[in-house]
């Protein structure tokens, strides 16, 4: 029977770490030492993360109420960051991470949205892959019933997966406009899933964590590893741009006159 350790002792044992590697290194090193120490010293880590596996982690993730890194004067880690660290300890298989990202309750989907529950063709395992392949999801009908779990999985993917997979898997989330609460050092601010994912793809730091540098999208396109991204705005894009230019022009004229 495959097992994990209940806590981070093995993960943090520099002399004897023998678990799964991420890009050739101990996954714990993806979190900076100072933050790592605060995580393993935190009450949430000790009390709520002890002994979790990839299934029981869902219990905690389902009750997440905000994302964020560290906060307060002492730099307390958010539960979100603690669970990320737990995922780095567990290194869940690909299918599990995709399940976190795209889980959709069948009951809701079958009974309410699709109507016809019977004629369901594709086996569920394939479904996640399809979402990734299609490039983007139907607008306004985002997958990932638990939006904070979805954000957590996205964060993990950005840290642990390979560049092409990162773009392919995370870009569909750029059309998920659901709100996320983010804890900052001083308080709370509002962001969205698409904004958070955009941060993951373009920024150097997110949630008290340095993001390793991934090759630019254009480079992967030149190497023919990625197709150019098609915005889900589609035909609307041009229209919107013209509108925007109109607004800009009006603004410019206004400022000249004033």
């Amino acid at each position, binding site marked *: 029977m495959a097992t994990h350790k209940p806590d981070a002792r093995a993960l943090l044992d520099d002399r004897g770490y023998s678990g799964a590697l991420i890009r050739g290194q101990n996954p714990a090193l993806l979190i900076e030492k100072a933050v790592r120490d605060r995580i393993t010293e935190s009450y949430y880590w000790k009390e709520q993360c002890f002994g979790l596996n990839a299934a029981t982690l869902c219990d905690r993730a389902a009750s997440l109420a905000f994302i964020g890194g560290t906060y307060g004067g002492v730099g307390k880690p958010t539960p979100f960051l603690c669970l990320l660290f737990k995922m780095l300890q567990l290194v869940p298989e690909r299918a599990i991470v995709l399940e976190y990202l795209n889980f959709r309750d069948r009951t809701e989907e079958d009974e309410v949205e699709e109507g016809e529950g019977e004629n369901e063709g594709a086996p569920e395992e394939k479904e996640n892959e399809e979402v990734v392949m299609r490039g983007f999801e139907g607008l306004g009908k985002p997958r990932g019933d638990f939006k904070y779990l979805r954000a957590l999985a996205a964060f993990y993917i950005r840290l642990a997966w390979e560049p092409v997979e990162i773009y392919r898997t995370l870009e569909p989330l750029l059309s998920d*406009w*659901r709100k*996320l609460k983010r804890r900052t050092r001083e308080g*709370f*601010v509002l962001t969205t899933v*698409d904004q958070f994912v*955009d941060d993951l793809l373009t920024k150097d730091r997110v949630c008290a964590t340095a993001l390793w540098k991934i090759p630019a999208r254009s480079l992967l396109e030149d190497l023919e590893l990625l197709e150019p991204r098609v915005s*889900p*705005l589609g035909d609307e*894009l041009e229209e919107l741009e013209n509108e925007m230019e109109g607004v800009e022009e009006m603004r410019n004229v206004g400022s000249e006159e004033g």
Partner: protein
Amino acid sequence: KFWDDEDVPDEVDDTDGVEPEAERVAWKLRELQRVKRERDALVAAEKEREEVERRRNLTAEERE
């Protein structure tokens, strides 16, 4: 200074679908900005390539 969880005012509401239309429009603007940013980066990269090319030609002519 002593920090406590409960001391921080939390007036941020993350409920979705309160104003569906406004939420959709706000997203459209963000998406538009992303597309523009991508495009601007491509244009900038192209310009740089041209500039490098131009300089290379200049030095070649100067050498003659």
